């Protein structure tokens, strides 16, 4: 039996990598992927606690997060394509105006 704290430590490491990538990377696709990484780190925490407390609500939350993440990926990728078409770049530092 693996202790719950292992899962949590792994989750924290994954989340920190996500945050670091989000802050450091300039490519918008990579930034997007780091968001997914943070979401999945949180998912891991949810299932770890669900297992620890023997309650099912944590697992249900994970399904919610997956659905939202799928929707977000669909919308987000569409926006990225639109931005690339107009600006010919995926560098977030160059996309700092709220207009096309």
């Amino acid at each position, binding site marked *: 039996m693996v202790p719950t704290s292992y899962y949590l430590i792994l989750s924290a490491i994954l989340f920190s990598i996500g945050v670091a990538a989000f*802050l450091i990377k300039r490519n918008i696709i990579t930034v997007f992927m780091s968001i997914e990484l943070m979401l999945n780190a949180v998912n891991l925490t949810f299932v770890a606690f669900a297992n620890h407390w023997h309650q099912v609500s944590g697992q249900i939350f994970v399904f919610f997060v997956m659905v939202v993440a799928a929707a977000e990926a669909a919308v987000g990728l569409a926006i990225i394509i639109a931005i690339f078409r107009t600006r010919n770049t995926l560098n977030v*530092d160059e996309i700092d*105006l709220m207009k096309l």
Partner: protein
Amino acid sequence: MIGSLHLWLIPLVPFAGFLVNGLIGRKLPKAFATAVALIATLIPFLHVVKIWFQFPSLTVPYVENLGTWIWTGSFHADFALQLDQLTMIMLLVVTGVGFLIHIYSVGYMAHEEGYWRFFAYLNLFMFFMLTLVLSENFLLMFVGWEGVGLASYLLIGFYFLRDSAAKAGIKAFVVNRIGDFGFLIALFLLIAHFGTLSYSGVFSQIAQHPELQGGVLTAIALFLLLGATGKSAQIPLYVWLPDAMEGPTPVSALIHAATMVTAGVYMVSRTHIIFDRSPFALSMVAIIGAATCFFAATIGIVQTDIKRVLAYSTVSQLGYMFLACGVAAYSSAIFHLVTHAFFKALLFLAAGSVIHSLGGEQDMRVMGGLRKKIPITFWTMTAAVFAICGFPPFAGFFSKDDILYRAFISGSLGKVLWFVGWVTAGLTSFYMFRLWYLTFLGESRAESHELAEHGAAVHARSDSKLVIETEHPHSVHESPWVMLGPLVVLAILATIGGFLGVPAAMGGHDEIGHFLDPVLGSGAHAPGGESTGLELGLSASAVLIGLVGLLVVHILYKVKPELPQKLATQFHALYALLLNKYWVDQIYGTLIVTPLLLISRYLLKGLIDRGVIDGAGFAAGATAQGFGAIVQRVQSGNIRSYAGWLALGAAVLLIVSYFGFTAHF
């Protein structure tokens, strides 16, 4: 007992006239505007006459409560109207003389721009004046008091395109505000002390406390007196009235001679219960009255503008009324108020007729010889001159002698007051007959006028009529009957008006005095008996000094017409002093107006307004702007910097919660 008297009709009908003429008068045909204005004053007059006939069967004071106005906490004020003997007399004078002057104005103002505006203001004045005399509490009286000041301002500045008229209007308003300030303080003191402003409430509380003497009542009386000196043009606030002659002449007659300026006398008489409890305030009233009476008369004797002479004469006659109030002879004051309303309105209207006939000329030095050319004006004016000089049997004789007699028998101060009044009677006779001689007798001096105008003649300050009528050649003509009619009626009243109050010493019954007794108290009505001889003697002496005045005028302006000029050069300093009205305007200007303007300009505007108030506003703006300039750097639009801030915030939260941030809460 009769049903409701509908007192509310009396002020509100003129107000309706004001609304009609004021709102749509510009578009109405002239005849219609005239009809509205005249009917709006005729109805109240007829109503007042009707009430006069019902008066003996009324229980007075008759109070008509039209509803609550202010009701807050323990304080309560109503829209309440009251009718008693004093109000009755004031109503008759205001509506009667007011109606006559409205008729006269139809002729006088016939060729003026803004005809409808004039009548609208005149009706507005009637509304406020009638509110003032009909009110049952100090607060409603104050509304009327302020309102007549407003109407006066509007009418003085009627020719507002002329700078001097606009300034005179402002001067009248500002000087009146000083008096109104005193009135307001008196109202606050009344509320603080008695908790009510209704006449019956205040007066009954005073009556219940006979020990209440002086003290707060003196303060109230003195502040009321300050208000009265403003409205009734007494020292120290009389300066606005002579300048008020910039208004059209009917306005001078109605507002600045017959009705509004007597509001102060009415107010002192109405509140005499307060004044009676304060001998100091009462003697102040008498001293101010006597001083004003003499002071204004001395200025009047050298003025050359016909309306200015009458203006100073009004100030002087109002001084007589205050003198009477000051010796607690309130009914004598009201009696003089009534006769004065007749003869002074007549004097002004006749002067207006003279000015009209001369096409706008107001300088007496270029008049003369008008007796034959405008005979009706001449004869009515003569009646008025005899009335104001106090020759029997004209109106002024009885009322003025009544005042002088009451002053004489009122103690040691009274003798001095009587002497001042007596000398002033001589001066009055002098300046009135001077006006009469210069205007009507002798030869016309109109030709020399042409020469004088090339010189330093700056007196052609006259109504805009001058401008209109000089366009076509103007010959001296008698005024139309619409103007002469009111003159004749007023001349009859000025002749016989005195028989309202023939004193017992002359075989009369002093009807007006006894009529007013229930309101004004009968303290001063000493039974005839031993004082009959004294009263007759005083009357004789007053007539005598009047005759002396007439004689001096006759010598100076008829027998030796070169003498006035000689006297003026010989007593140059005195002449200059009088001609320049004792430099009171200049003194006020230097001591009060200039410092106030300097304080306003440099301290209040420069330092307080620009420095403190504007400064605080600008400082607040600059602070917000500077802070915004700093924090706007945060909103760069760069996603990664937002993420960095977010991460930083999360990290701070984590650290704080880890090191027991919550433990402190």
